[in-house]
């Protein structure tokens, strides 16, 4: 491995070294403030290190990792997301006592897993990245010890995610048996020599799709999502919903493109079916949900359905470039928005010791008590609903453009129907937030502080900027794809 290889992996190295440093720190001095500051520093450094690393991209570092600009862009995104999660967690973890330092260690490891997924170009890095992400997340979800919901959520997630990993691996084993290659590009080359009607190949793909479908919480592999999202501590939920999803989707996209899986019509049909089901079922499930966390989790199912459209569009070579660009933009916008939405929930639930739930009634009148937080929530919800001026709209615009370029009218119909249903439950939250309460009503307490305010403002500005001035990012995405 040359220096250039290592430099291209700089963010990963920063994260790994950071994890070790943090562990050493915990071993010698247990101090939450210090740990969190160190974590912030590590995330910031890792994100910054993506800059110099781009000079060495694209480059295949061993058969396992590919350091291209897309990978670096998303690595930076994941690190920033980690940074945001850390800020949100600081307040949250302080109130939960009981050795919160390892929490940050696990967060770094989990982000490392996500970054590995962004780089992954080989089955080996796929499994390891995915498992690093998941294993750290199991522990993160179960981290708070004052409530039993996290435990329940973690055990459900562990068992089902393990099963999904096994399914995915079994599928890859079948692929390996057929092609004899494990790198994605090799796989593509080898698959090209196989007859496209090879049944075992298709079954292998079904297994892979099921495994990834679980990780992306696509219908019918979505059942765990609401329970896990609800039970997990809110900052972790935000991380899980944004980073974990984006990383897996990016991986899926890479696999789909590099291994040329788009050549299989059967697979495209399955994807379309799953996408339509996800869009409809996810939105319908969210419809009357009073628990905001569950509601957002259902909506994330639907959003993954929207994203899946892009893979279907990739089936035609004419529109593939547009589709990838759309996916990248969508992932970035979705990550920012989701972090904002769950971040707000974590701020609201921070002082409620005994529960991870945030109900609609808890945000009642938030507009008048905490205008900044409510503003953030408003913008995040509008962005999720795809209302113009927010990141979500540009993202949806991309999806529409991509789907139209491929003339996938059925998917578009489901997209429109799903979005229509979605508007209802997003607005419901906004309505509750703008309620006028009787004077006797006391609002669920919320966290505050300069770091919260500045974070909220920053997220708000990012979402709005992505929605109103998307050109720079679009241009950058076009330049790297």
């Amino acid at each position: 491995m040359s220096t250039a290889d290592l430099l291209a992996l700089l963010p990963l190295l920063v994260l790994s070294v950071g994890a070790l440093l943090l562990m050493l720190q915990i071993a010698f001095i247990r101090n939450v403030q210090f740990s969190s500051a160190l974590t912030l520093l590590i995330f910031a450094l890792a994100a910054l290190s993506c800059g110099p690393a781009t000079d060495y991209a694209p480059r295949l570092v061993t058969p396992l990792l590919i350091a291209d600009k897309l990978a670096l862009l998303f690595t930076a995104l994941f690190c920033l997301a980690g940074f945001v999660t850390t800020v949100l967690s600081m307040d949250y973890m302080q109130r939960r006592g009981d050795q919160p330092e390892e929490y940050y260690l696990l967060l770094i490891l989990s982000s490392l897993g996500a970054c590995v997924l962004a780089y992954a170009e080989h089955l080996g890095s796929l499994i390891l990245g995915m498992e690093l992400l998941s294993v750290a997340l199991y522990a993160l979800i179960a981290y708070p010890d004052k409530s039993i919901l996290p435990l329940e959520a973690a055990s459900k997630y562990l068992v089902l995610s393990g099963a999904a990993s096994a399914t995915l691996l079994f599928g890859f084993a079948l692929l390996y048996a057929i092609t004899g290659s494990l790198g994605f590009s090799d796989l593509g080359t080898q698959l090209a020599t196989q007859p496209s009607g090879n049944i075992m190949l298709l079954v292998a793909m079904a297994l892979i799709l099921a495994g990834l479908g679980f990780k992306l919480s696509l219908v019918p592999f979505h059942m765990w999502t609401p329970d896990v999202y609800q039970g997990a501590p809110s900052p972790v939920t935000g991380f899980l919903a944004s980073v974990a999803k984006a990383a897996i989707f990016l991986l899926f996209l890479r696999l789909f493109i590099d291994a040329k899986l788009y050549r299989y019509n059967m697979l495209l049909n399955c994807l379309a079916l799953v996408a339509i089901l996800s869009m409809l079922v996810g939105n319908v499930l969210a419809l009357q949900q009073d628990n905001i966390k569950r509601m957002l989790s259902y909506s994330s199912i639907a959003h993954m359905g929207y994203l899946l459209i892009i893979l279907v569009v990739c089936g035609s070579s004419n529109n593939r470039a547009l589709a990838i660009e759309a996916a990248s933009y969508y992932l970035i916008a979705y990550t920012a928005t989701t972090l904002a939405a769950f971040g707000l929930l974590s701020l609201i639930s921070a002082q409620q010791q005994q529960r991870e739930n945030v109900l609609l009634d808890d945000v009642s009148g938030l507009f008048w008590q905490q205008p900044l937080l409510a503003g953030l929530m408003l913008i995040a919800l509008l962005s999720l609903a795809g209302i113009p001026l927010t990141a979500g709209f540009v993202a949806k615009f991309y999806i529409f453009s991509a789907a139209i370029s491929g003339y996938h009218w059925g998917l578009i119909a489901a997209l429109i129907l799903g979005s229509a249903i979605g508007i209802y439950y997003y607005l419901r939250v906004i309505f509750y937030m703008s309620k006028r309460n009787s004077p006797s009503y006391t609002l669920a307490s919320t966290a505050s502080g300069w770091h919260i305010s500045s974070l909220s403002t920053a997220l708000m500005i990012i979402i709005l900027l992505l929605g109103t001035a998307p050109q720079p990012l679009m241009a950058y995405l076009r330049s790297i794809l």
Partner: protein
Amino acid sequence: MNGLQIPLEHVLIIASFMFSFGLLGLMLRRNIIFMLMSLEVMLNAAALAFVAAGAKWAQADGQIIFLLILSVAAAEVAVGLGLVLQIQRRFKTLDMDTAKRMRG
């Protein structure tokens, strides 16, 4: 010493059976320990398939993936068993059917 020269499918059928049975265990058993065991069986099935495929192509990659699966299984089981301890402590039972506080 040379390896076997039997059809790959036979090994894969065994792996499939183990995989399916692992899934069955997951669907049937309520005790989380058994669920973890089922997971192990499934992972083991995948590992078997990889090793067999590696044997078919005469590559070391199959075994390396097996190795990775092994570490994955180890990590999962470690955390999983940690959870089992917590579950027993909190719920006083390992029956996962009682763990349905979140629904709807």
